């Protein structure tokens, strides 16, 4: 009987070791997503196997996301990090990863899932010169606005999740198949909805609509920003307004993260209409962080403005 406490302690130690060795078996994969689009896709693909938290919110400018310490603890405990990639998160993610003390989710780590790996970037700068504004050196990173490219993002995410959690590979493939089928069903509907946009000339606030324009046939003429990330100067605005009048530009597309008054002023002086869209999922009312809902809401806003439904 004297050895009883020792036996109990040994048993407890063994149990503790087994518990620790077992790790998070049965627990859901803790995923941090940098932006709402990749967060929603990860939820759609991962289903019950993943628990997703998002750093940026839909209405925010991805170049200006606040660097909060509460994100550090989430990254520290994450099993995987999903990013949209092409440097879109450069303003906040490197600073957070610097102190998150989680090597596996660093860009060189196995649990860093980059949704851009299957995307062929557009507008890749031919020179790295800041006189051209704040260019993304790997190309324009706003490919999430094109739902066909959205399928490639989803595929990259599913492959990344399977790499991190091989036991769930088939579940992620099923999730991907479901999500892709949904997009395959929606894309023809969206193309029909967006038919009035084909050939429409537009300016945007920031240079982030190339993929959307490419998909739905919008002709981008310029931006309100002087250069990417560089605010409008009076001279640039005068030049832009002249160009818009000459080219009969119909639309001023204002991304919800940017100020409305300047977009309205430009529209008033040119006879164009303002359409407010969101470059991130969940930025418009009623979209609730959903990628599919956000594509729908963006297209509806654009079509409404083109068809004379007033500023949206």
């Amino acid at each position, binding site marked *: 009987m004297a050895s009883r406490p020792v036996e109990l302690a040994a048993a407890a130690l063994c149990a503790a070791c087994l518990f620790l060795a077992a790790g998070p078996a049965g627990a859901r994969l803790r995923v941090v997503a940098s932006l709402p689009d990749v967060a929603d896709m990860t939820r759609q693909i991962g289903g019950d196997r993943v628990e997703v938290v998002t750093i940026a919110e839909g209405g925010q400018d991805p170049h200006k996301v*606040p660097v909060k310490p509460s994100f550090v603890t989430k990254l520290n405990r994450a099993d995987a990090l999903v990013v949209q990639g092409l440097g879109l998160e450069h303003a906040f993610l490197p600073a957070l990863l610097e102190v998150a003390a989680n090597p596996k989710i660093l860009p060189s780590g196995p649990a860093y899932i980059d949704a851009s790996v299957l995307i062929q970037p557009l507008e890749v700068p031919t020179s790295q010169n800041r006189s051209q504004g704040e260019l993304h050196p790997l190309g324009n990173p706003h490919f999430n606005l094109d739902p066909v490219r959205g399928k490639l993002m989803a595929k990259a995410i599913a492959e990344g999740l399977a790499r991190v959690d091989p036991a769930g590979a088939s579940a992620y493939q099923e999730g991907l198949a479901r999500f892709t089928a949904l997009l395959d069903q929606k894309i023809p509907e969206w193309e029909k909805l967006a038919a009035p946009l084909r050939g429409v000339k537009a300016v945007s606030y920031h240079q982030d609509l190339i993929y959307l324009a490419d998909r739905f046939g919008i002709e981008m003429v310029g931006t309100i920003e002087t250069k990417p990330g560089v605010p409008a100067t009076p001279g640039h605005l005068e030049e832009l307004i002249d160009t818009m009048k000459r080219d009969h530009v119909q639309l001023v597309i204002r991304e919800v993260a940017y100020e409305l008054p300047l977009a309205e002023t430009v529209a008033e002086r040119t006879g164009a209409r303002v359409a407010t869209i969101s470059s991130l999922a969940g930025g418009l009312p009623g979209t609730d962080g959903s990628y599919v809902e956000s594509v729908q809401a963006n297209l509806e806003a654009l079509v409404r403005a083109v068809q004379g439904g007033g500023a949206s």
Partner: protein
Amino acid sequence: MDPHRIGAWLCAAPLALLAAAGSAATNDEELAAVKAELAATKSQLSATQSALERVEQRLDGLEAGAAAPAEAAASSGPRIPPVNVDNPAISFVVDTTGQTDTHGAGWNFALRSGELFISAPIDPFLRGFATINGSSEEGFDIEEAAVVTTALPWNLTVEGGRFFADVGRLPHWHDEALPFVDRPPSIDRIFGGETQAEGGQVTWLAPTEHYISLKAGLFNVIGADPNEQLRDEGFSGYRNFSELTVLVHPSTYFDLTDTLNLELGGTFFTVAHSGQRYLYGVDATLRHQPGTSSFYQGLVLGSEWYWNDEEFQNVDPVTGDPLPGDQRFHRNGGYTYLEAFLGRRYSLGVRGDLAVDPAGASDRQITSSAFATWYPSEFQRLRFQVDQVNEQHAQNDQRFTLQWTAFLGSHSHGFTTR
């Protein structure tokens, strides 16, 4: 039975059996042929399905501008900005000021800081960085040259070399990263410039949902001026443990609402040798970050206060004037500031500061400041600051400073200077 009929049956039966056998053979062959045809059709269908999938995949790829998604998936890792592995990230900051005051001393144009910053991963376990700074006032100095671990277990990070010790909030920020044109006078006097230090520091991030960070360091001395003094004295590099400066800095953070958050920190450092120095500090930063696109973009209310209890041996650390014997001084000071961010590129702020000398006559100075900042782009900044300086033993003064700062190269603010 008629024998002819029996005979006929006897003849017919084998023929019937033969015919039946022949018929069965024909059925088997047909069955085999149908099976083969089915297998071939299935094979063709499978091939067609595969081809269809490949075409669909190519179509997706072509529609999305990707040449060969499957191959790309097999060969692509995460996309990271193209940095030559043999060359570190390099940035250079040009920080210039023009200043005048009501004392009528004239104008002073200065290169406040020309700062070269270099950083790079060294191997999978370590990164390194260095800051070389030159200024009109202080000449050239290697402000920082240090290495930081990146893959230690248990949420530990170790930093070693010469770097700005993690004291409070602003004392370890580089000049160009401060929200004002100058280092708050209270911080400048208590620490002697930035918290430059040579030694090592360990950071532990608590493995909890709530943010708690604990830093502990061991240094020769903390502060740019004390470090320079040490070097000027021909410091040999050896000291007793009790003569080293020990630093402890816990900090935590609270999301009060979705848009309002509070960060709290405490600082304690000591030179244990005969109780030579004890410094206590608290820092608090309240941020409102609505993340909206309206004109009002947010607000920061920051404050730090330090209590310094130090024994000086015969020499005033600031003026170098002789002091009558060893003396102990209890001094405290700090600042509070409020900065509002308007639009995407503008901010306005005010600051109040109470500064005293850590030894000798306190020379209390109260500075009230207002400052306005404009970022023409992310990499260029213009700031104008007006200071009302009320000094205990000098004539009051109004100071006007225009600061123009430009960031060349791969400049980015880290977590600590967010």
